[in-house]
C-alpha cells in the first residue's frame, strides 16, 4: 500500500487546501452544422451539442463521486460561431440563444465559442458576430464570447481592437442592471489557444478534432500550503517545491481527463496546467506570492515572484501529463482572487503592475473592474497594449475588463460565484483616441535579433 503520509497528504489537499478539478470541457466541432438557412443551422447546432454532450455532466459527477475529487465545472466549447454565420448570414444572436438553450438542456454551466478569429482581418460573418456580442451576452445566461485580434505570426488587427473597445463598453452597458456581467463573459485575445478549457475564453479551434475532452486543474491553495512548510528556504528550494506540487496536481487532472474520455468515448485532448484561483480564502495566487515573501501582491518583486511561480508550475506539470495545452500557467483574475481583491482595495495592486505581471504569466488583464465612464478608446488601447505584450513575447495574452456602468473608483461590483467581486480600479484616462482611430494593422514582429 502507498505510505500513510502520502495518503494523508492527498486527503488534506482536497479537504483543506481546495484542490479540485476546475473544469472538464468538451470541445465540439460545429463545422458540420453549416447551412445557408440560419434556422436549420441552429437546429443542427442544438441537436449536435445535445447529442455529443448528453452524458457529460453525469459522467463528471460519477467520476467525482468514485474518485472523491471535486470537479467544479462541466463545460462545452464549440467552433467559433462566426464561421457558421459566414455560411448562414442572418442575426448571429440566434446562435447565442441556441447555444444557451443547449447548455441548459445538458446541464453545463458555461458554453464558450461565440467567437471570431480576426487577427489578420475580417472574413464573412466576423463583423456581424462581433457587433452582436453585447446583445448575445445580454440575452443569454451561459454563453461566453471571445475574439482573437492578434498573433505573433500576423501582428495586431487594430481595426478589430478599435471595435472591441466599443463592444466591451456596450456589453457592460446592456447588462448594467446585472453588475455588468456581459463584459465578464467576453475575452479579447492575442495568440488565443484553440484548446483552452477555461472560460470565458474557451472555443474549439478549427484545427481541433470532431470532439475532444480537455481538463483544467486548479490548486493555488495546495501550492501555498506546501510553501508554508518551507519558511526559510531560498528561491531554488521554493521553485522545487512548486514543481513537485504542480506535478501531483496535474497527475490528478491527467487521471480524471483520461477516465472521462474513456467513459464518454471521446478522445482526450490536453490538461491545462493552471493555477486558477477562486474567491474562497485559501485559494489565491496572490497569497502564494505573499507566502514567498512579498508583504502584499503588487509591490516590487511581484513580477519576479510570479515569473518563478509560472515557470515552476509548467515544469512540474509537463512531466505529469501526456499532452499539455490551453492557457497553462498562473492566472491572475483580480475579482476571482481573495488576495488580489485585498491588494487592489489597499491600492497596492495597480493596473500598471498587473500589465507587467501579464508579461510573465498566463493570460492577461483579467476580471478587472474599471470606472463606468472609461472611454471605449482607452479600453481599446488597453487591449492593444496587452496584445503587443503577447505578440512580441510569443505568448497568449487577453483582456477581460468590466466597465462598471454608473460606478466610480472606490465602488465595487459583485458578480457572485466563481467570478467573485472587485473594486473599481483607477484607469489612466489620458486619451489614446487618435492612435486607435488610425486603424490598420501592427505588423508581425521580427523573430530574431531578440532584445
Amino acid at each position, binding site marked *: 500500500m*502507498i505510505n500513510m503520509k502520502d495518503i494523508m497528504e492527498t486527503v488534506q489537499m482536497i479537504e483543506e487546501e481546495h484542490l479540485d478539478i476546475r473544469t472538464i470541457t468538451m470541445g465540439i466541432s460545429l463545422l458540420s452544422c453549416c447551412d445557408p438557412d440560419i434556422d436549420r443551422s441552429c437546429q443542427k447546432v442544438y441537436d449536435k451539442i445535445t447529442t455529443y454532450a448528453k452524458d457529460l455532466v453525469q459522467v463528471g459527477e460519477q467520476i467525482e463521486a468514485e474518485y472523491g475529487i471535486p470537479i467544479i465545472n462541466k463545460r462545452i466549447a464549440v467552433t467559433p460561431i462566426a464561421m457558421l454565420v459566414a455560411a448562414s448570414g442572418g442575426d448571429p444572436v440566434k446562435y447565442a440563444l441556441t447555444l444557451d438553450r443547449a447548455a441548459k438542456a445538458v446541464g453545463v454551466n458555461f458554453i464558450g465559442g461565440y467567437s471570431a478569429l480576426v487577427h489578420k482581418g475580417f472574413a464573412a460573418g466576423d463583423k456581424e458576430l462581433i457587433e452582436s456580442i453585447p446583445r448575445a451576452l445580454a440575452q443569454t445566461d451561459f454563453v461566453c464570447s471571445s475574439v482573437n485580434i492578434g498573433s505573433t505570426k500576423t501582428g495586431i488587427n487594430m481595426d478589430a481592437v478599435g471595435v472591441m473597445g466599443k463592444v466591451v463598453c456596450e456589453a457592460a452597458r446592456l447588462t448594467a442592471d446585472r453588475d455588468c456581467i456581459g463584459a465578464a463573459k467576453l475575452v479579447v485575445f492575442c495568440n488565443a489557444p484553440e484548446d483552452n478549457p477555461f472560460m470565458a475564453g474557451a472555443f474549439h479551434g478549427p484545427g481541433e478534432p470532431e470532439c475532444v475532452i480537455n481538463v483544467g486543474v486548479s490548486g493555488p491553495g495546495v501550492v501555498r500550503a506546501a510553501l508554508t512548510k518551507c519558511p526559510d528556504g531560498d528561491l531554488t528550494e521554493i521553485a522545487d517545491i512548486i514543481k513537485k506540487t504542480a506535478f501531483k496536481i496535474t497527475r490528478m487532472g491527467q487521471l480524471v481527463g483520461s477516465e472521462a474520455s474513456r467513459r464518454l468515448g471521446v478522445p482526450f485532448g490536453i490538461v491545462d496546467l493552471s493555477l486558477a484561483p477562486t474567491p474562497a480564502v485559501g485559494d489565491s495566487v496572490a497569497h502564494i506570492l505573499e507566502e514567498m515573501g512579498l508583504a502584499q501582491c503588487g509591490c516590487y518583486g511581484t513580477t519576479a515572484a510570479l515569473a518563478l511561480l509560472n515557470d515552476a508550475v509548467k515544469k512540474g506539470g509537463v512531466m505529469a501529463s501526456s499532452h499539455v495545452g490551453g492557457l497553462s500557467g498562473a492566472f491572475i483574475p483580480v475579482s476571482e482572487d481573495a488576495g488580489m481583491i485585498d491588494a487592489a482595495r489597499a491600492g497596492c495592486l495597480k493596473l500598471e503592475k498587473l500589465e507587467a505581471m501579464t508579461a510573465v504569466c498566463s493570460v492577461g488583464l483579467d476580471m478587472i473592474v474599471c470606472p463606468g465612464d472609461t472611454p471605449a478608446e482607452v479600453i481599446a488601447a488597453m487591449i492593444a497594449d496587452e496584445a503587443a505584450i503577447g505578440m512580441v513575447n510569443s505568448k497568449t495574452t487577453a483582456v477581460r475588463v468590466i466597465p462598471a456602468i454608473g460606478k466610480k473608483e472606490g465602488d465595487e461590483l459583485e458578480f457572485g460565484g466563481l467570478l467573485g467581486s472587485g473594486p473599481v480600479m483607477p484607469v489612466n484616462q489620458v486619451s489614446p483616441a487618435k492612435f486607435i482611430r488610425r486603424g490598420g494593422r501592427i505588423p508581425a514582429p521580427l523573430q530574431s535579433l531578440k532584445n
Partner: protein
Amino acid sequence: MRAIITVVGQDTVGILASVSGICADHNANVIEVTQSVMEDLFVMVMLVNIDHLSGGINGLAQSMNELGEQKNLKIHVMHEDIFNSMHRI
C-alpha cells in the same frame, strides 16, 4: 478495483469495528489496515477491494459519511488510482 478509506478524528472505542462493519455491509473486502494515534488524534488508513460492492462506491461513501457525522470523524473514500497517479511515477 481498490479504494482507500481514511479516518481521522478523536480516538474512541469501536472506530475500527464500526468502519469495518460498514465495509462488510457493503461487501467491501478489507485488504490492509494501518492506524496510529498521535496525541489523541486517531488516524486510520484502510485498503479495501471494491469489485463486488453491493451499492457501488457512492453507497459506501455515503454510509461512511453518515458514520463520520455520528462519531465526529472525517472519513474519506477514494479510488486507489488517485493515490497511485499522484505519488508514483
